[in-house]
């Protein structure tokens, strides 16, 4: 631990002491130091290159039952005292109309957690990073498809955190992240189509060896060009659908993960992120088939949403959101857990030091079944295989959703045949999860940035699952 970080740890502890000595009944502080680099290659030109490092403290306290939050990035005692003093004053004034904040009990913890990586982002040169980007850009061109725009970005972070609260918890963590985003436009047959996707991991640069992105980008560009040239619309009617892990992942994230967030269920995010069709009384209600099993698990190390302690110092654990189609668990922080009379299951996360921790997903995925991919295909006589998607959305109660396929094919008698153009699934959540008939054995996780909160917090998550067979989807 470096000297500056140790000094800043003392300041975080001081925030807790200061709030307590000014009447707070509870206080916590999160020190975050982040060093990052980022590069953008647009149509083959390195248009942006940046490095950054910062430290900041975000602190929460409860005063006369009201919840207050401060964030500062000038880490000196006078600066902290000034901001905290003003915050305590506003929070005290708000107490007359504030919700009485109660946190579910949590055992104080002293822990250190470091995500070990073979090639830390801090040890990889800018030359190598830009060279990796250029390889991805070249891979798109190597498809020989007509590419009319290319956009490839690479960013990495090393995040050191220190969490301290008035109940005695002291938790340190160090997590590296590597993140690739790409977008390209293919033209064929007088039309265009786009592919935008992201790869990310809580790892070092060894992830590039695992991702094999050059091959993926080249093949995706070829498949899109073929789709543009040859694909026909899906005929109207009911079809069995095999959805790939990217599609299954977004479905799990949007229509299982989000509506099971207890703060939505309780109305705290109603203004922007919305509420939920799931009510607190619906634990134990069956809304999907026996084959539908969905979890959120921050302990999965390869996930982009990996952590072992949440931003309230609660140990992370797997949450069994949907089990055999039944709603079995919500995502909680300490505040929602107290409101619903249970323990927090460690779902409190803040995107950065200057945001409050709220209930978030981590790595959300459909659990595997016992079919091979070939066996799943063999189940389908007349269907559609949707490998990936572009456009999607869902309403603010998480009932009405749409996924538009990108690379997609017809399935005839268990065989993937000709491409189909942008098949649209527009369906309600119970209808979707009731249609799950079988899942394959192999799970893939894909990285994403999930938006929630006000102010908006974009946070690293992963989503995924196996290939899943959905019966009787209407197009």
């Amino acid at each position: 631990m470096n000297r500056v970080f140790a000094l800043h740890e003392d300041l975080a502890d001081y925030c807790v002491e200061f709030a307590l000595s000014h009447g707070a009944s509870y206080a916590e502080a999160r020190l975050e130091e982040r060093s990052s680099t980022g590069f953008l290659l647009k149509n083959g030109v390195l248009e942006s290159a940046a490095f950054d490092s910062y430290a900041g403290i975000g602190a929460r306290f409860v005063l006369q039952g009201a919840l207050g939050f401060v964030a500062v990035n000038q880490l000196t005692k006078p600066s902290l005292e000034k901001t905290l003093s003003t915050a305590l004053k506003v929070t005290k004034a708000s107490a007359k109309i504030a919700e009485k904040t109660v946190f579910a009990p949590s055992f104080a913890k002293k822990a250190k957690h470091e995500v070990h990586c073979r090639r830390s982002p801090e040890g990889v040169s800018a030359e190598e990073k830009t060279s990796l980007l250029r390889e991805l850009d070249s891979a798109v061109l190597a498809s020989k498809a007509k590419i009319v725009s290319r956009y490839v970005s690479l960013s990495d972070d090393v995040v050191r955190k220190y969490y301290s609260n008035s109940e005695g918890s002291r938790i340190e963590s160090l997590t590296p992240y590597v993140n690739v985003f790409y977008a390209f436009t293919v033209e064929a047959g007088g039309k265009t189509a786009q592919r935008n996707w992201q790869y990310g991991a809580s790892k070092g640069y060894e992830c590039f060896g695992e991702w094999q992105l050059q091959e993926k980008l080249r093949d995706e560009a070829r498949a899109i060009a073929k789709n543009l040239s040859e694909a026909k619309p899906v005929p109207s009617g009911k079809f069995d659908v095999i959805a790939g892990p990217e599609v299954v992942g977004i479905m799990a994230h949007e229509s299982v993960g989000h509506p099971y967030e207890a703060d939505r269920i309780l109305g705290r995010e109603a203004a922007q992120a919305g509420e939920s069709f799931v009510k607190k009384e619906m634990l134990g209600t069956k809304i999907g088939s026996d084959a539908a099993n969905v979890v959120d698990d921050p302990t999965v190390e390869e996930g982009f949403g990996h952590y072992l302690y949440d931003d309230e110092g609660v140990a992370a654990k797997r949450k069994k959101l949907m089990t055999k189609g039944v709603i079995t668990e919500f995502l909680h922080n300490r505040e929602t857990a107290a409101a619903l009379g249970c323990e927090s299951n460690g779902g409190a996360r803040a995107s950065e030091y200057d945001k409050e921790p709220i209930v978030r997903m981590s790595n959300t995925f459909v659990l595997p079944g016992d079919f091979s991919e070939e066996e799943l295909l063999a189940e389908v006589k007349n269907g559609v295989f949707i490998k990936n998607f572009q456009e999607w959305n869902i309403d603010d109660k998480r009932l009405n959703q749409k996924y538009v396929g990108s690379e997609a094919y017809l399935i005839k008698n268990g065989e993937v045949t000709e491409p189909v153009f942008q098949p649209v699934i527009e369906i309600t959540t119970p209808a979707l999860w009731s249609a799950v008939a079988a899942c394959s054995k192999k799970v893939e996780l894909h990285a994403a940035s999930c938006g929630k909160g006000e102010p908006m917090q974009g946070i690293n998550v992963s989503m995924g699952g196996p290939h899943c067979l959905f019966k009787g989807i209407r197009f």
Partner: protein
Amino acid sequence: MKPELEETAAFLLRQLLEKGADDAVVHAHSSSLHQIKFANNKVAKTGIDDAASAIVFVAKNGRTAMTTLKRFDREQATETAAKLVKFTSSLQPNPSYAGIAEGSFKYPSVPDFDSNLTSLEDKAVDLVEKCVNAAREQGAERTAGVFEWGTEEEFLVTSRSVEARQEGTSLYFSLRAMAADGSGHKVAVARKLSSLKAREAAEQAGELAVKSRNPVDAKAGNYEVVFDPLSFSCLLDTAGQAASIFSVEAGFSFFAGKQGTQVASPAFTMWDDGTLEQGFNSTAFDDEGVPTRKNLLIDKGVLKGFLHNTSTAKRHETQTTANAGLVAPEPWNLVVEPGRHSLEELFAEAKNGLYITNVWYTRFQNYVSGDFSTIPRDAAFLIKDGELTQPVKGLRVSENMVSLLKKVKALGRDRQQIRGWEVETPVLTPPALIEKVRITRPVS
């Protein structure tokens, strides 16, 4: 701004030039942003975010790079300058870069600074309480939202004789009201407290919540749709992004290749205006220090041009529009020319159709073609014989953005300034009547 911030910024610029930078920009910000978040009619959290930082840009031997300075002292500035120049030298050239603006410039004073905002604490709590009560008096059962206010100071120096400073204040109020299965959402945006129409927003949200109770599923089909300023601004935000030349080059613009052509109906005219009075994002200068202006983007439906910084303008043989972004030009405030109709007259003009007060989750299948969908949320109603009737739910606008803009039939005369989750660029717009909008819904 604290003197040490300006002194350090100027010192850092000199350091960069001494180390061989061809161009350099140091843009220091200091801000104090406050928030009261409320839910279920009660305050859920109060918060303050105090921050100071400087964005630092350098160009050297055809290479460009950026970093951020977070600690304002000479030691840190010296270290940052050395690291940035070394980092820049390790990069491949950026042939897209063609320089920053040559100063110096004169700037108009920004009149929209409200000194009341530096100590608003008790008044802010009272404002939230009054607005929650105002919505409830309309019949709302629950309310949720935020009240945010803040002050920001900026100091910009460049290697091209620019020295600019400004201070500003901003206010944002958002309230969503719920009554049984009905809901309504309104926002209020201003730079001065006296101009913030928060109570009106709360009352309107409460009224919409009550009116929209007991919605029924609407049928899919093509509808004449009246979009409220809140829902229309969510769509126009994407048009503002598409107007940046960066989006055009990167494959994120449905305006690419359409300059000088009809991209909207003749009823539709839109500017980007960095000088807008009470504009949430109004600024005296852009990120190069060029004085901002009002730029005509779409004139009676014809796309007049794109948003540029100095570098992109040189490459495209035009002039900067004062929208730097050093990497990507960005719109400041989008402003739609009002029409002549009251909201009721737009309903009458629609005869039979839909009134959509809010949308969210606008996502594109293809940014270049403009194919997208978005989901109406909160109050939506059927219009029958020119009157609002049955509340409806379960809709989706599945459309193409250029096609949609071309179908704008009429605009209202009363404009509102909107910003929010999906309206990153503030939009001053009236309601709009759009013909034959494709509405889809889940099938089973």
